[in-house]
């Protein structure tokens, strides 16, 4: 790619040097050195232009056009498909967990910093135990957040409970931060009757009205326009709050991503779009996903203010989301954050990512760039944390999660009647009829149905 970019920059440069007279030449008489670029559409355009038209044009003139004045130019210049340099990535903590001089991230209190760390550790341990529970066949499915703990927890820390979260599915840490209990996580994964979603969705599809967190769906990117509509409502109600929605690099290819950014800009909706660019959409690397400089550059095309952040730097995420929130609410505008990170775990328990990516790559991100270790070292260097508190935390959380799993396993499944409720606000006649019919069938063939689902 680097070679291609250099080539196209040369072309643009050359055109500006050729001047208008050069444009009158037909393509076969162009210098031999440019023959290799013959397929470039720029040359086709060269041949059809009339120089005279440009000669009489005053370059200081403007075209009044919707959106503002557009300056005229006699120079035929195609905008390059890429900038000379990639958009830089904002970070606060360096690889050795030292604060970078002159970095600005606002303030984080020791209490908040310690909670960010303990929640990141909790998320890691929860992932480990639930993942193992799936491997033991105790739950049907699981999906870890390993490697993306900082994006989860630090973004949540920068929000208030009044901010509506419209999640993808790899952001359980936001719920954890908001106080969704380990028991509630376990109940959802075990689809028992304590699951707020009544056992209807696969594990990890959490949702909680109490925690202002829309219910997860497996669909990709379809939540993004919802966040815009919700944010518009919050703006109309004059709330001191915004909507925050998460998605991945793969999700940025969906039509709903385009719809949401464009609508958000036009509607001036206070919504923060947080893209977890973790490099992989199941097995598809970003090189097969897009040719842009990631996701951050798309913001400008839609008129959306954007920033690229080191997603493995909790302080940078915290600072960027706090600033984004402030701008979104006070200026009634959407903000796009692209967090660069890595999906250290497999896509889900149905995936083995070593089949399509090198183990070395996974290990490098797991060890050298682990966001939890990086943040932990920083709070330790501040004297807010030590080896003793670390041991105590890990042992306590592990016991809590194991207890939650054991308890969730013993709770009954939701009753069969919940199969029919909530399709509509009340049961229509066809569902009443099907409910009756099903119950008669169960009586005749009880052996066909699971025993742990009460009638």
């Amino acid at each position, binding site marked *: 790619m680097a070679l291609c970019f250099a080539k196209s920059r040369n072309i643009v440069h050359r055109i500006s040097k050729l001047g208008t007279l050069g444009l009158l030449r037909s393509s076969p008489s162009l210098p031999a050195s440019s023959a290799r670029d013959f397929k470039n559409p720029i040359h086709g355009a060269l041949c059809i232009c009339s120089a005279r038209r440009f000669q009489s044009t005053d370059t200081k003139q403007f075209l009044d056009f919707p959106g503002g004045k557009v300056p005229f130019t006699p120079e035929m210049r195609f905008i390059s498909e890429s900038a000379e340099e990639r958009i830089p990535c904002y970070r606060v903590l360096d690889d050795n967990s030292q604060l970078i001089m002159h970095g600005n991230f606002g303030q984080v209190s020791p209490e908040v910093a310690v909670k960010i760390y303990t929640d990141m550790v909790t998320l890691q341990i929860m992932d480990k135990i639930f993942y193992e529970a799936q491997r033991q066949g105790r739950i049907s499915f699981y999906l870890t957040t390993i490697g993306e703990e900082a994006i989860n927890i630090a973004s949540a820390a920068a929000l208030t409970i009044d901010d509506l979260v419209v999640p993808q599915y790899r952001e359980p840490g936001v719920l954890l931060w908001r106080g969704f209990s380990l028991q509630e996580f376990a109940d959802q994964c075990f689809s028992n009757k304590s699951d*707020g*979603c009544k056992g209807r969705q696969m594990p990890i599809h959490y949702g909680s009205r109490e925690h202002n967190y*829309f219910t997860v769906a497996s669909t990709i990117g379809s939540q993004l*326009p919802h966040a*815009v509509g919700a944010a518009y409502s919050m703006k109309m109600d004059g709330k001191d709050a915004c909507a925050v929605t998460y998605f991945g690099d793969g999700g940025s290819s969906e039509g*709903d991503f*385009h719809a949401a950014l464009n*609508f958000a800009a036009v509607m001036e909706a206070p919504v923060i779009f947080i893209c977890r660019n973790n490099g992989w959409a199941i097995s598809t690397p970003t090189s097969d996903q897009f040719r842009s400089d990631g996701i951050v550059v798309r913001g400008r095309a839609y008129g959306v203010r954007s920033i690229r952040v080191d997603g493995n730097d909790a302080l940078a995420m915290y600072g960027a989301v706090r600033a984004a929130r402030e701008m979104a609410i006070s200026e009634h505008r959407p903000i796009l954050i692209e967090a660069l990170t890595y999906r250290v775990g497999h896509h889900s328990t149905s995936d083995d990512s070593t089949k399509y990516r090198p183990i070395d790559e996974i290990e490098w991100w797991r060890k050298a760039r682990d966001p939890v270790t990086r943040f932990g070292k920083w709070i330790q260097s501040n004297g807010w944390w030590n080896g003793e508190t670390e041991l105590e935390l890990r042992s306590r959380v592990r016991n809590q999660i194991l207890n939650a799993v054991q308890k969730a396993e013993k709770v009954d499944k939701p009753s069969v009647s919940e199969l029919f409720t909530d399709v*509509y606000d009340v049961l229509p*006649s066809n569902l009443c009829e099907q409910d009756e019919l099903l119950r008669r069938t169960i009586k005749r063939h009880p052996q066909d149905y699971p025993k742990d689902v009460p009638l």
Partner: protein
Amino acid sequence: MAAKLRSYGRGLAPLLWRRGLSNASSSTMIQQQQQQQSGKSMNLYSAINQALHIVLETDPRAYVFGEDVSFGGVFRCTTGLVDRFGKNRVFNTPLCEQGIVGFGIGLAAMGNRAIAEIQFADYIYPAFDQIVNEAAKFRYRSGNQFNCGGLTIRAPYGAVEHGGHYHSQSPEAFFCHVPGIKVVIPRSPREAKGLLLSCIRDPNPVVFFEPKLLYRKAVEEVPEDDYMLPLSEAEVIREGSDITLVGWGAQLSIMEQACIDAEKDGISCELIDLKTLIPWDKETVETSVRKTGRLLISHEAPVTGGFGAEISASIVERCFLRLEAPVARVCGLDTPFPLVFEPFYVPNKNKILDAIKSTVNY
């Protein structure tokens, strides 16, 4: 989407006015209205417009939006709304149907009445995922913690004599396969106003297909006040004893003409307006078929997989021993909607009349 005929709505009107009106159908329908309140003679788009005025007036949390909605919409249904209620509550959206519905879901989920317009039902498909996977499952998947019941999607549907592939479709059957949404289609101005108000206020997401053929063509007395007509209740709009005909929307006036002609041949037809396609009123249809012993269903959408198939199967299940003839379906052909062949494609009066006769004489 780029090829949308933006001036279509406005161009359509004079043609429709020139076309002959079915006086018989509109007058009979008016007589069948349950309430004879004092009203104003009004066409269907004006009735829709009045409903939207009422809902924006009565509910400060109601919003109307879609493509070209600000200036009144290509069919004039949103005329005057932005002047009265302001551009924060009545607004244009970018040209993106999945965005319109997705935005509407989020707006509705915050406790608002989100009234989204899809300019033509033919263009609803980019929003199909938002309707099927998002709106329809929003309540169920959250265990009733969240819902987007305030969402109503309005979309003009159906044949207009010159609409070709992309300004003529009747896509209702796709949506009738989706638990969690309601599908409603009105037949006349008075019905349109009352049903639309019910849909907007119903606590479930609704797709409301408006018969664009009737926007200007159908005129009847419409009560000026705020009234609602019940959902999931079919209506017998013409009583008869020999055969039951079931339809919805613009097709009912064609069916009614066939009923009138059949009567001249001594066949007494009962005509039912289904109004709500899901969840539909099986009982009213069943009661009628138990009386007549015969059933004919007619819709403009292609016959294969059309909603007529569902009605037919359900009634055969319930009334098998009472049926004296196979259930007849007089529907659109299994082709894309064809411009120059439209007169051949549509289930017209004589196709229906022939089917009535062959069913009665089976």
